[in-house]
């Protein structure tokens, strides 16, 4: 049952040179947790698609914020409030530049990707969907890009349509196009699949949808840590991502939306900060993005996110992408060569994720045995149960990478899988 998985495409000397410019051993020293041991073994953290580790720069920025700058934002006239507001809004500009958005007012701070998608479903979605209208997603979505749309469709008596994928885990573009109809009100799709690693051809997808005047929301949670993202070039209408998967703190994220769409959308939650004026008769909402940011914001989160972006900028997303491309290619070759291993998700374009199963051994048992070797992977359905059903398996073992991972850690994973086979021999 061994499958020779496709190595990621476009092996180019220029890309290899770019990747080799990354000094991984130096980078690893920036992440204090990577130096710790687990069960007496050197930690190999290969669960980055679940959450990433944090560099000292992010940890320090959050500590500095609480030691020197903490205050409520936007409303205070005192020094600290101005300072905290400046830091918060500086992070917004960094996020804007990071994904190449045209304006800072297109950057809505949210708790994470999940809240970003729910925000769009509950505002844009509720305003635009009627009975028998349709939302189009794909068969490779995370539960967070399925359930918000199901809730909306239930409420509106609308239909959730699902574009199929092939055995490699690639979207069938022809089928996708056929599902775009006069009743399709929005397309919601992952940039990179969390369970399969597939990189979707967003340019083509957005063009197909826009030809019919259908807006596209992109779940960017698994893309932003691995590649340079340009929302203007993609021309997508919404793009959501999480701070904690890109080396920033938990509980923080960004929803990008085109200004014209955000302007026209009703507010999400009511409260302080999202209003211009309130009387018992009438409330005027604040301008975007503040209209969608009710309540005291997560300033610790924005400061940490800003520090993570500056850290990534200093390394360069193009270098990170090139290095990870090579690492994933190495891992795919190494792990798929182990007899009994089958790679789940063999798309030509992949990023960050290597999902696999091992003949005769349940992924949960693989996870426990690897953990004893200090290797952290995720096992289970990865919040993407429909994908497991598509491939007819209950679960997979998933190794997911970041730019601080090494070929030595991939080798440790391969040895760990051999150890699993010994235990189950």
């Amino acid at each position, binding site marked *: 049952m061994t499958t020779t998985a496709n190595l990621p495409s476009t092996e180019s000397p220029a890309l290899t040179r770019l990747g080799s410019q990354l000094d991984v051993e130096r980078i690893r020293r920036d992440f204090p947790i990577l130096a710790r041991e687990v069960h007496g073994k050197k930690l190999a953290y290969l669960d980055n698609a679940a959450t990433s580790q944090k560099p000292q720069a992010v940890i320090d920025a959050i500590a500095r914020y609480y030691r020197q700058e903490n205050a409520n934002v936007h409303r205070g006239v005192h020094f600290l409030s101005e300072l905290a507001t400046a830091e918060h809004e500086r992070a917004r500009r960094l996020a804007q530049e990071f994904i190449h958005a045209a304006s800072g007012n297109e950057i809505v701070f949210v708790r994470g990707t999940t809240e970003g998608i729910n925000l769009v479903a509950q505002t844009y979605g509720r305003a635009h969907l009627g009975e028998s209208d349709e939302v189009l997603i794909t068969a490779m979505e995370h539960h967070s890009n399925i359930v918000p749309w199901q809730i909306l469709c239930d409420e509106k008596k609308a239909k959730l349509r699902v574009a199929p994928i092939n055995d490699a885990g690639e979207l069938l573009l022809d089928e996708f196009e056929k599902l775009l109809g006069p009743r399709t009100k929005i397309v919601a799709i992952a940039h990179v699949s969390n369970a399969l690693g597939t990189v979707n051809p967003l340019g083509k997808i957005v063009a197909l949808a826009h030809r019919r005047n259908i807006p596209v929301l992109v779940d960017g949670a698994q893309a932003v840590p691995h590649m340079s993202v340009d929302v203007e070039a993609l021309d997508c209408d919404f793009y959501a991502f999480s701070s904690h998967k890109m080396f920033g703190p938990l509980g923080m994220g960004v929803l990008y939306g085109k200004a014209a769409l955000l302007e026209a959308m009703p507010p999400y939650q009511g409260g302080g900060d999202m209003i211009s004026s309130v009387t018992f008769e009438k409330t005027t909402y604040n301008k975007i993005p503040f209209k969608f940011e009710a309540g005291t914001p997560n300033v610790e989160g924005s400061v940490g996110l800003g520090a993570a972006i500056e850290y990534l900028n200093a390394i360069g997303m193009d270098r990170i992408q090139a290095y990870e491309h090579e690492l994933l290619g190495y891992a795919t070759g190494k792990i798929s060569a182990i007899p009994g291993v089958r790679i789940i998700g063999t798309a030509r374009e992949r990023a960050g994720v290597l999902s696999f199963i091992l003949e005769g051994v349940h992924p949960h048992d693989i996870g426990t045995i690897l953990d004893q070797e200090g290797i952290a992977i995720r096992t289970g359905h990865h919040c993407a149960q429909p994908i497991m059903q598509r491939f007819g398996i*209950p*679960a997979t073992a998933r190794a997911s990478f970041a730019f601080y991972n090494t070929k030595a850690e991939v080798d440790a994973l391969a040895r760990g899988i051999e150890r699993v086979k010994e*235990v189950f021999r």
Partner: protein
Amino acid sequence: MADLRDLYQEVILEHSKAPRNYRQLAAANHHAEGFNPLCGDHFTVYLEIDGDAIRDVSFQGSGCAISKASASMMTQAVKGKSKAQAAKLFDTFHKLVTTGEANGNHSDLGKLAVFSGVSEFPVRVKCATLAWHTLQAALEGKQDPVSTE
């Protein structure tokens, strides 16, 4: 450091590869479904109850080695027992997999004692007890599937 061999004992591996009483039970008058959403384990336990006695018991489904072996050995352990005896055995088994001790009831456990190593792997307790929770639901005639969450 916990030893993997304490968890993956030969008897457990053997049962996981060749589970006993792994079938639907034609004469079943009770059955229940159990899920572990964490890892996707899913079992159905079938019972043929005669008065107070568990005349026959079987199971089907998919899961990790620990959950499958536990289900297999459970069917062997409770067949022919009274409902009360089965409930007491679950109680003892639960103590074993959570604490590694059986409070002096070790002899009741018989072969099930091989699961004592599970206590060193707290995240795997749910795997070891899924079939037992499902058995309990079947005995109580519960309609909704049980979940370990």
